């Protein structure tokens, strides 16, 4: 029997762009192989691990399936877990959600607390539906994610949901509290950590956490922590005035590391803090962001007492960002320090309109303009 709503849903799936052609085919090949093994052995053969892309193709290819077929409803749930809400929305708009999914009504506009959500989830007997409900509930209410909710999903079978909720939680108002807790918890649930990119997860946890010495906790994860985590720890050392520790972590990071740009900045700042100006200058050469690089060069020059380099860097910064008050003040100061009063006067005259709403700048400019180009 034809199901027009399901046909429209399939047409929608067909129009969605998938990943690159080879990636898509790889997933299809793997899916086909898994199904073949399943047919022969009767075992699950990893069928539970199909992702949303694979389920889309499966639903598209099996035109005889009804809307209640487990893979069809499984696709809707998988889409919720993977954050591909447009699939869920389309299924809903076509009236394809199973009538038994009463949870979708409260989950969509969920505005309660974490405890309320957990109670409501407890009323959903099907595990997969519980996963979908949680992801739907936090869609518009990220603040509801806390360690208790995460704990409900911190197991191998629901690890994908755990990671989804963790990402939402870390970006929300309770990010720091969640990060502190989950860093400790994951050390005892390594399989859950390994369900997704370990380095990126650990780095995100370190960045969000308030822990003074995250490296102590991260040690438990050994080489699951990579360059991203290492750089995040270095940043924490730098923030907490431990430049030497920061430097030791990032100074030999490989040039092609995805964390290199951040690491080299930390290295330059850490070297600067340690008074290792030569090293700081060396690291600063590779800083990709030109503004940042010039600021570091300025600080190195200030530390070295090299006024020429300082003036040059500040001039270039001023040219790039004439509205930046801090750069302006630093430039005026160095000009006056080296006796370039006429130039300082001219710059102040030119800038007074731009900074007319800035009382601090006005206080600096006023006496310079009063003194005139000669500075007297």
């Amino acid at each position, binding site marked *: 029997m034809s199901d027009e709503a399901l046909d429209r849903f399939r047409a929608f799936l*067909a129009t969605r762009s998938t990943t*690159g*052609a*080879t990636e898509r*085919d*790889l997933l*299809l*090949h*793997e899916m*086909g*192989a*898994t199904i*073949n*093994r399943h*047919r*022969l*052995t*009767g*075992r699950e*053969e*990893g069928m539970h691990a199909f992702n949303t892309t694979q389920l889309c*193709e499966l639903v*598209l*290819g099996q035109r005889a399936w009804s809307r209640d077929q487990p893979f069809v409803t499984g696709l809707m749930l998988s889409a919720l877990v993977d954050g591909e809400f447009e699939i869920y929305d389309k299924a809903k708009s076509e009236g394809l959600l199973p009538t038994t999914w009463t949870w979708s009504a409260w989950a969509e506009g969920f505005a309660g607390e974490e405890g309320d959500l957990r109670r409501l989830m407890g009323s959903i007997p099907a595990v997969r539906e519980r996963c979908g409900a949680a992801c739907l509930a936090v869609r518009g209410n990220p603040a509801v994610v806390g360690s208790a909710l995460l704990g409900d999903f911190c197991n191998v079978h629901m690890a994908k949901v755990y990671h989804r909720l963790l990402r939402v939680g870390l970006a929300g108002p309770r990010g720091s509290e969640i990060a502190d807790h989950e860093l400790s918890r994951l050390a005892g649930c*390594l*399989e859950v*950590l*390994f369900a997704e*990119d*370990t*380095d*990126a997860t650990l780095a995100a946890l370190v960045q969000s956490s308030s822990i003074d010495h995250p490296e102590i906790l991260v040690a438990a*994860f*050994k*080489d*699951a*922590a*990579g*360059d*991203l985590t290492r750089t995040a720890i270095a940043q924490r050392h730098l923030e907490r005035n431990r430049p030497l520790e920061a430097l030791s972590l990032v100074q030999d990071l*490989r*040039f*092609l*590391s*995805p964390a*290199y740009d951040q690491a080299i900045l930390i290295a330059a700042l850490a070297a600067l803090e340690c008074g290792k100006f030569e090293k700081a200058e060396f690291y600063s050469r590779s800083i*990709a962001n030109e503004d940042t690089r010039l600021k570091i060069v300025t600080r190195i020059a200030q530390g070295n007492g090299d006024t020429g380099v300082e003036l040059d860097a500040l001039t270039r910064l001023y040219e790039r960002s004439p509205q930046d008050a801090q750069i302006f003040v630093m430039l005026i100061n160095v000009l006056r320090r080296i006796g370039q009063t006429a130039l300082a006067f001219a710059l102040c005259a030119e800038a007074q309109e731009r900074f007319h709403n800035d009382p601090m700048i006005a206080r600096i400019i006023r006496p310079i303009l009063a003194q005139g180009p000669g500075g007297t």
Partner: protein
Amino acid sequence: MTSVQTPLAGGVPALSSNGRTANQGSRAMNDMPSAQRYQQARVMLQQQAPVIAQALPEQWPASVPTLPQRPTLDAARLATSTLNEGLLLIGLGDGSILQFLRGDANGRSKLVHVLVLMPEIPHFAHLLGIVDLPLLFKELHLSLHLVLNANELGSVISRAFTNHGQIARLAGTRTVDTHALAPNAERMRDEIHPAIGKLLLERYDCLGNDVYDTFLGAKHALMHGRKIITQPRSSDYAYRYAGKSALCIASGPSVSAHYERIREIQHEHVIICADSILGGLLKNGIEPDFVCMVERPDVMHALIDGHAEQCRTVIFALPVVHPTSVIPFGERVAWFWNADDLYPWLDANEPRLSSGRSAGTITASVAGLLGIKEAWLLGHDLAYRNDGQSHGVGTAPLAVESQAEWAKDLSRTSANYHKRLIDTPKNGGGYLQTTGVWEIFRSDIEGIIQSYQGRTTFINVNAADEVGAVIKGTTAGGLPLATGVALEKSHPQRAWNETQWETYRSRGRQLLADFATVQERFKEYDLELATWRPLSHDREAVESMGKKIDLGTIVSPENAAWFTYVFRAALRNLMVKLHHNTFVRTMAERNWNQVQIMRLYLHSVPSLIERLRPELELALKEFT
């Protein structure tokens, strides 16, 4: 320098450093002037990759336009951000991407295929003057492929990912296409990019993903019993018609237009046909010398039912075809030793040949095997005719009907490549509609034709008639005129002895014992692996477990090839999964992924054995 040279289709070679044995004089090159270094590199390339060398200018181009570095650095960073195994660089740029990769441990660990595009030859030439080429080859797992034009991409990609192992590895290969190129090379990259995507996708299709399908082939081979030993094989027919001519007849829509002419000249040429057109030819008074069959399902006998008894035709069949398809031919059977991994198990001494994947493609292969000098291809349309016809008049109903049924699901966006509608170049210009599976057959026959280049000339009658799909490597021409001189035809007998049969028989009988051994050992390893947790085992331990669960080392040595063949789909597909999972940043993740895949394998294979054992027992009745 002993880099491996891989000849590519059309004579375009790839320069590869798979052996990673750079010459010992590389250090001396560091101090060499660029122009001299360039000439040395040219000499090396002339020996290792003459087509690449030929494209290079005589003199070293001392300067070339500079290219922006940042996009290349970003591309290199992305390329090395994970522990995946391979890179496919579309374009070389100024070569700085190779310099970035060689300076990075992750970059050095990858197999890097570089498609050097024709417009960037000046940059490539310049690079040869400023880098130490042997050293570069030593430091990187590098394969260079020159792409002169888009038409060559098929050969380049299929050579880059040749066999099952490499195709599975494709899943762990990242395509790098954002590094800076010279403007005209960038234009070429944009042009060829979709074609590369399509070709990579076709490579996956070359991986079987069904264990049962593979097992069926092995089972059928066993069901033929001693006939595999006693009946003639491809080697018995090698060069039997050396210097003669043949007609290779498939069942495309164009074939029926030629029946009359074929009938007139049939006794002057070797007539080789596909299974589905045998009945049509006999009905039109043509008695083929050989009918070819490659497909294994039991139902295939319907293609020859009622015909085998009416002719003296010999069936050239792969041993994987079902006995019901060959029994009607009595002793008029010849086994074609295909390139598949099953054949060394049947007889490792028999040379293996590519049959292609259809009864049409194998007709060309048989012609080549026979030593034919000129082979006319008839009915090799490999596309729908403009009126939608898929087969010629006289084709077996089973073929026509099953094609029609199968075609119901064809679409341009089908997820299944076999069922995808595609436009293919038509003889005489323009395009015809074809399917993914016919495109695969077309690639197969082109490969077969290429492999007999210089010995057999393939003349495509369709090319002269301007119908059907273009088949590269053929020449256009009509059927030859009758000369009145008949070709003397005969068939060989096979020389064999009981020892050969006994050896083969004992291997077959051992299979069931090997099944039991695998189940027992896999159970042990599964228990062992169940205790493994993330971070608890290092790379060495994981690799060592990987070796332990290699089926080829568990079963009796004489049956290693059989098991590797039968379970290759299970293994390769899990390898695809594994390679795909190498897009991770840390070795700990890579190890854990491998453990998960090994667990799945350890669960899957014993279950598969349970499923296959009863059928194997039946198949081995001939061996008791």
